């Protein structure tokens, strides 16, 4: 984007010499000021959001300090608040979802970018875009009524039978829990990984592929050993974007994670996530410290997604520059 701003005929020398009054008269200056106010309000709103999260969690932050992040107890009645079960649940579900979504998403992106004819690729991408538009509450609905029963009756018993010796798959099969939430999240973030990775792969210069093929590599070797490494940064970016989405996802997770603040190594165990506890308890929080603890959780979530989104954007911009010399993703 930065390069294209120069194409706009803005304050040139001729314009600069016109008096302020004449610019005011023909409306340019008024328009500039008005649109500036609107643009500035976006910055203001964002600052206000950060300040509000910081300010409204101040009592909780002072009271609990860093212990907030390592305490396992979440007891609104006794006014004891520890974020560990929620942070644990959020991270575990996000990791499970990435383990599923990354191979599938990158595989599909390679197919769309490298293999499929233009028309097929565009059609499939259109469906992927529609998939990305499905709201999370719909994923939650299907999660509750389709995925959870499937997990309880078929998948989880099978996992226990085959891999039950691992601590990852111990305990009763409830259907709801970390694994189910991770699977639903995976389905939700796959479209993001595909769309962004496909763009990145398509921006890899053609001569990279041709050179590899000319040296006698097979089609797969040229893709996997030349094109994908070239696009590695951008693909990492797409994964970070997906991770940020997965961490902040609320409705679908709330509906299938089981909503109990437990830290349990078993993926079959019910759990809780940061977003889910905010969604469930925010309107019911009666004491000020409860509300503050929830806002502090919101602050944690905000910071996590902020860092991940920033990293993702950096990686995407760097890869795009490497690919074509254009700073546009």
């Amino acid at each position, binding site marked *: 984007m930065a390069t294209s701003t120069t194409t706009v005929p803005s304050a040139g020398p001729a314009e600069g010499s016109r008096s302020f009054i004449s610019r005011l008269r023909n409306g340019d200056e008024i328009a*500039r000021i008005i649109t500036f106010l609107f643009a500035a309000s976006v910055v203001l709103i964002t600052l206000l959001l950060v300040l509000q999260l910081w300010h409204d969690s101040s009592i909780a932050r002072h009271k609990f300090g860093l212990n907030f992040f390592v305490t396992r107890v979440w007891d609104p009645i006794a006014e004891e608040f520890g974020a560990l079960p929620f942070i644990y649940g959020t991270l575990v579900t996000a990791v499970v979802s990435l383990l599923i979504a990354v191979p599938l998403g990158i595989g599909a992106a390679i197919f769309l970018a490298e293999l499929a004819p233009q028309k097929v690729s565009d059609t499939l991408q259109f469906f992927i875009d529609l998939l990305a*538009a499905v709201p999370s509450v719909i994923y939650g609905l299907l999660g509750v009524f389709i995925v959870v029963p499937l997990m309880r009756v078929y998948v989880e018993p099978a996992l226990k039978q085959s891999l039950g010796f691992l601590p990852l798959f111990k305990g009763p099969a409830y259907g709801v829990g970390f694994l189910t939430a991770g699977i639903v999240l995976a389905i939700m973030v796959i479209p993001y990984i595909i769309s962004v990775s496909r763009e990145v792969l398509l921006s890899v210069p053609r001569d990279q592929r041709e050179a590899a093929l000319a040296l006698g590599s097979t089609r797969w070797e040229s893709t996997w050993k030349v094109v994908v490494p070239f696009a590695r940064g951008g693909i990492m970016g797409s994964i970070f974007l997906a991770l940020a989405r997965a961490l902040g996802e609320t409705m679908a997770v709330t509906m299938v994670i089981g909503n109990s603040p437990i830290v349990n190594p078993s993926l079959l165990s019910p759990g809780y996530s940061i977003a889910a506890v905010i969604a469930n308890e925010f309107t019911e929080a009666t004491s000020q410290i409860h509300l503050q603890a929830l806002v502090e959780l919101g602050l944690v979530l905000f910071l996590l997604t902020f860092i991940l989104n920033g990293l993702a954007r950096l990686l995407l911009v760097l890869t795009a520059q490497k690919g074509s010399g254009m700073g546009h993703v």
Partner: protein
Amino acid sequence: MNPRLRWRKFVSNFMLTMTGVCAVVAVSVLFFILGYLVYHGGASINWNFFTKLPVPVGELGGGMANAIVGSAKLLLLASLFGVPIGFLGGIYLAEFSGSSVAFVVRYAADLLNGVPSIVIGIFAYALTVLPFKHFSAFAGAFALGLMMIPITLRSTEEFLHGVPRALREGSMALGASKWRTIMSVVVPAAYRGIMTAILLALARVAGETAPLLFTAFGNRYWSHGLNEPTASLPVMIFNYAISPYEDWHRQAWAAGLVLLALILIVNIFARAILSRGGTILR
């Protein structure tokens, strides 16, 4: 052909086939979702669903007329709040600003775009619910509008940048002021793209549930005016899906089908607008 080459060819074909399988699996999810919704929801949709209020727990029947109207109200208000800020802010970025101001605004918009929707809900609660001590359609619309701002802003800017410089120069050479040029030449040239972006933003927030939970809240009756708790389709789906009642589950499916159908139709329509007239921009 020596064995090594044969092996390499086999690996190549196998892996490429697997990527195809990945793509098919990913896309088929969409059809699973549609299939389940049509199967479960289609049977529950009837005239009552669109015209009746929810009935008390235990009684069968009823509908979600209030949630459909409520969603429409929220979306209209949200656009009235979010679109002008995004659109005019985008004009400033594309036409007036220097690069440092633009960087800050763009950065803020991207930041806002990445904020999880539940956190937007907390923010809207603090700003529009706490001071007035009650949930309202205004609060819900504020939360949704916030989410529309970054999308509208960035795409307005992008599509305005796509307008050829010659159009601007032509207009200014005829003596039009800069503002005149923007309003009657530049914006109309980018009109389709901007409309598409606004429609997509609207479709995105139409399904948002998390920010509405503690702003618009929900309502089992008609809400009178905009200052009362207001029902919306996504929140209704959530509440009905996690309820223990069979009849509510049925209605949650029906509501899910209606919501998804609306969102997909808007998406397809918006993309159609763009692809039909995108020649100037692409």
